[in-house]
């Protein structure tokens, strides 16, 4: 009976077991998406922002994580 729910939780957990971290990554993508629309002639800037944003999220989440 619980198998579908267990499976669904496991599948969702593949992408978002840390909801705050997942939302932060989505926020970065959203901001970069808006900037890419506003500044279509500056792919280096928006691209660099996407990369540094993701690395910054990784650094923040890794430094905050406890046992």
């Amino acid at each position, binding site marked *: 009976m619980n*198998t579908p729910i*267990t*499976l669904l939780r*496991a*599948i969702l957990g*593949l*992408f*978002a*077991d*840390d909801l705050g*971290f*997942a939302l932060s*990554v*989505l926020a970065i*993508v959203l901001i*970069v*998406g808006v900037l*890419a*629309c506003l500044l*279509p002639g500056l*792919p*280096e800037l*928006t*691209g660099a922002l*996407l*990369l540094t944003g*993701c*690395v910054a*999220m*990784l*650094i923040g*989440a*890794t*430094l*905050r*994580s*406890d*046992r």
Partner: protein
Amino acid sequence: MAPAVTAAFLASLVEVVEAFTIVLAVATVRGLRPAMLGTATALVLLAVVVAILGPLLDRIPLQALQLVIGILLLLFGLRWLKKAILRAAGIIPLHDEDRIFAAEEDQLERQESSGGHLDWLAGLAAFNAVVVEGLEVVFIVIAVGAGRGLLIAASIGALAACALVLLIGALLRKPLSRVPENTLKFAVGIMLSAFGVAWTGEGLGIAWPLRDFSILLFAAVFLSAGVCLISVRRAREAAGTPR
């Protein structure tokens, strides 16, 4: 093509090792029948998922596909990378196939003593493990292969990993605990995160100046960040300051 095949192979290797541990525990406690039945049912379900998803992918515009898969790759890859860093730094325990095997055996034996329908429960355990790990393999193959004509190449990488694990597992008949899972997860986390940045960017209309070589640059950035983070977290642990 090589990064996609390598990512699919390494990621699938880790996932198949994890599924193999549970299936082996089921086979050890209850015999081959429930283990094979659960595994076969799961593989049929996975085949159905692939058969449904495959044609759907062709109908989605490339840019939208890149954006959706890129975001999922970022979520998936960064999560793997973060956990691999924390494991390498000793913050969270390493994935231990021997311990997982023993825990699964213990659980199945307790279910036996409580008079449950053990064959059914054991088959369900094998089914769950193969579906969850198999879906990860399917996602990774689609993610690194779709949209660039590399689905078959990525699938071959994944199938090679399955064949390798099954071959070694059949010979050893014990959990493959000597596979350096965390190192593999660290490497795959880097590759998937790099693919994720590239695909998300392209999905957002960003034309990367170095084209596909950008992925290597992104991987180098994530690798540098990962190595530094392991050092920092290890130093903090040694100093006794978790934060």
